[in-house]
């Protein structure tokens, strides 16, 4: 699998994402600079990493969504390419219009860095297939603006189309208010595009994909990707 990580000024999880992709696929992820106009040839998958692209100025992800490379990323997604956006990457995907809704300031108005429990809401995607029967996983969040919102019609449609990838849940798997760290609508932590090939999520699977770091629940996401691409 040939993967690339888009690097914006202010990205700071680009290396972490590259390490996780390289480990899962056995092939070095390529770093692509935001000012480039074209993507490398033959890419199977693109990741938009976490961080503070353009300092979060104006609105998180808003300036990055208009970077030269993003036109090529949007074309890639529209042709059915796999795109993963984590944290700031999710914010950028929303600003490009590849995913619906918005990400608002956390309800507590504070930055939150903490492990959270997530339910894997669907395994019917190239990002989540490897989770199998594992319903509740632990993955960290680290954000200030991660409360997912959309109008009720959009939320209903996302649910009806099985496009909620992850929800914040209690250890027992319940989407309670206490388990919702940022005030996201319906405890939503990650969503899929209509063709199920674009995933945006606030939690950081790349940070818990290595036993030395205290957990490996994030690794199955990268394993899913590798498997999906091998099968293709």
């Amino acid at each position, binding site marked *: 699998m040939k993967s690339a990580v888009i690097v914006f000024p202010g990205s700071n999880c680009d290396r972490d994402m590259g390490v996780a992709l390289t480990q899962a696929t056995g092939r070095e992820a390529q770093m692509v600079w935001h000012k480039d106009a074209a993507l490398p040839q033959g890419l199977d998958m693109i990741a938009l990493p976490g961080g503070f692209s353009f300092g979060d100025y104006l609105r998180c992800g808003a300036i990055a969504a208009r970077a030269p490379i993003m036109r090529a990323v949007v074309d890639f997604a529209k042709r059915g390419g796999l795109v993963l956006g984590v944290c700031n990457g999710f914010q950028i995907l929303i600003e490009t219009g590849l995913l619906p809704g918005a990400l608002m300031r956390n309800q507590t108005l504070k930055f939150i860095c903490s492990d959270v429990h997530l339910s894997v809401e669907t395994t019917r995607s190239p990002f989540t297939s490897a989770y199998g029967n594992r319903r509740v996983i632990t993955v960290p969040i680290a954000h*200030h603006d991660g409360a997912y919102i959309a109008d009720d019609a959009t939320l209903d449609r996302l649910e009806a189309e099985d496009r909620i990838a992850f929800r914040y849940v209690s250890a027992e798997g319940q989407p309670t208010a206490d388990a919702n760290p940022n005030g996201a609508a319906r405890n939503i932590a990650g969503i899929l595009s209509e063709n199920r090939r674009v995933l945006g999520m606030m939690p950081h699977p790349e940070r818990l994909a290595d036993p030395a770091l205290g957990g490996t629940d994030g690794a199955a996401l990268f394993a899913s990707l590798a498997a999906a691409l091998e099968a293709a």
Partner: protein
Amino acid sequence: MSREPEVNQELAAGHGLKPDEYQRILDLLGRTPSFTELGIFSAMWNEHCSYKSSKKWLRTLPTTGPQVICGPGENAGVVDIGDGQAVVFKMESHNHPSYIEPYQGAATGVGGILRDVFTMGARPIAAMNSLSFGAPDHPKTRSLVAGVVAGIGGYGNCFGVPTVGGEVRFHAAYNGNCLVNAFAAGLADADKIFYSAASGVGMPVVYLGAKTGRDGVGGATMASAEFSDDAEEKRPTVQVGDPFTEKRLLEACLELMASGAVISIQDMGAAGLTCSAVEMGDKGGLGVELDLDAVPCREDAMTAYEMMLSESQERMLMVLRPEKEDVARAIFDKWDLDFAVVGQTIAEDRFLIRHGGETKGDLPLKALSGTAPEYDRPWVETPAAAPLGDVPDCDPAADLLALMGTPNLCSRAWVWRQYDHMVMADTVVRPGSDAAVVRVHGTAKALAFTSDVTPRYCKTNPVEGGKQAVAEAYRNLSATGARPLATTDNLNFGNPERPAVMGQFVGCIQGIGAACSALGMPVVSGNVSLYNETNAQAILPTPTIGAVGLLESLEQMIPMAPGAGDTLVLIGETKGHLGQSAWAWELHGRDEGDAPPVDLDAERRAGDLIRSLKARDLITAAHDLSDGGLAIAAAEMAIASGTGVTLEQAPGLGPAAWFFGEDQGRYLVGCADPDAVVAAAKEAGLAARTVGAMGGDQIILGDTALPLATLAEAHCTGFARLMGEA
């Protein structure tokens, strides 16, 4: 251009220069300085930049060792960690700005220390913060805590360095002067360290980074004076941080260094362009000529005086190889950073400043730092403390519950949840343990980080308090299995012109020096912050020790949480020292008695023992004993492991002395074979005894008990309660 004020003794006084210091300038120049020159002298000769009160004593600290690549004097210390790699670290205060404007003060403190580290060619991999605030119920405390924590997070999170540890304390002595001490550590190749000494004549002096504005003009001078009630009027002297620019500056600097274009580099911190240019010239034995018309400015009509004293953030000064100018320009353009050739190195010993076709300054460069005043301030030894009188009654379980929920001992998760402590995906031990552990990326090695000081000990007995700060850092590193390497010291004190305060400073330095020598942890960098007083009320003497240890592999790492069924062995001697203890102070409001004495030889043997017990696979967990003694240490281990604990009452000591005494040099370890652990301790000449075991869901102390869940609840919600959020 506005007319410059007339330079005289009164104007000099307004710049913080004493009459004899002004006279020294007149004698040095043989003329009256220009307005810009006066500003330069005030910037170079204030306490913050010149260390004029502290130098004499700083020289007594041990700063060398086989592991030390570069000791104090550069932007940060450099220590060998094997395999051609080095850790670069320093701690620095941003106290005064943080009190005046907590968010930006703390944020720019983080920015400054990160720049110190990457200026040396190291990529920052960990940050910590030691914070001291006033009484929890003081009207300013909550807003200072909220602002400082948000500022640290706002800067570090965006920059992308994990903030992995630190301290937070509360005491009324900090009501008018909070302390914000920021630590950063970075990783570099040992043979690719960059220094500030310029070399070569006629080399371009290049300005890189954010534009220069009027923010922070006179900041270093402000930081060298006491506060009175008008502190808030000084808000315009605080700089505003832009972590996004700093992140770009980091990446651009590291790329530039890798390209071979950099001869020397210095960040613009306190006193901005003045300090950085003088530093580069002075260290390289060269003069510097600056053309201020070339300096990128954010505001119109800035004067030479303002440009030389601006403390605008995220700026660097470097001397570049002229033949690499195109390479350098391409890198700056890539990162969209301002870049300008603002001068050149010259052979003469001159600091020449030109602006608008005029010479605004023409000073002997070497003399600017070389002839800075130095004082041997009078000092008096801190008198010996009266012994602690009658000890109040103690119900161990009830007292433990009360202590664990106090502002000084409750969980700090409220704070570190606001810091991204996992970015870079190498954080192995997160905040809340003895020391944080961060992997050396791509290797089996890891580094352990801690910051420690117990100010109430330092106030009572500066020498023992100074030793204790280092010893506790040594213990925290050892409890994680790391081998302590070196320290950085951030010395926060009151007004050094008062002999009692100077005596605290001298005593603490003596203690720190003795401990650093005995424990093999030389001081490789540091910072002094004096005049931490408001209306003549000094802070507690607070010499914060930041320390770094090495784990050759993660297999050497010792967790803090034992397993259910593990036996607990206490290593080190317990005499039941309650003087200056957290128990006496927090629960009974008594700050009496002497600080606990520190036996440095026993400390060293105990640390070595812990590492050897791990190597022999005899222990499952270890935790150092500090504030609150045995009971608090056991309770923290219980909360970390989610398992209850039983501790027996020792014969011969009262419950307060046994459970809450703060004798030094002690560790609590979890193990399966306590006899083997006790035997190993005896061999090392250390006291050791089985004191209890893990298991169940109760905390049982002698014949008192409480549920673990109750204790954990009090511990975890304490900080939110103090902030009025629970």
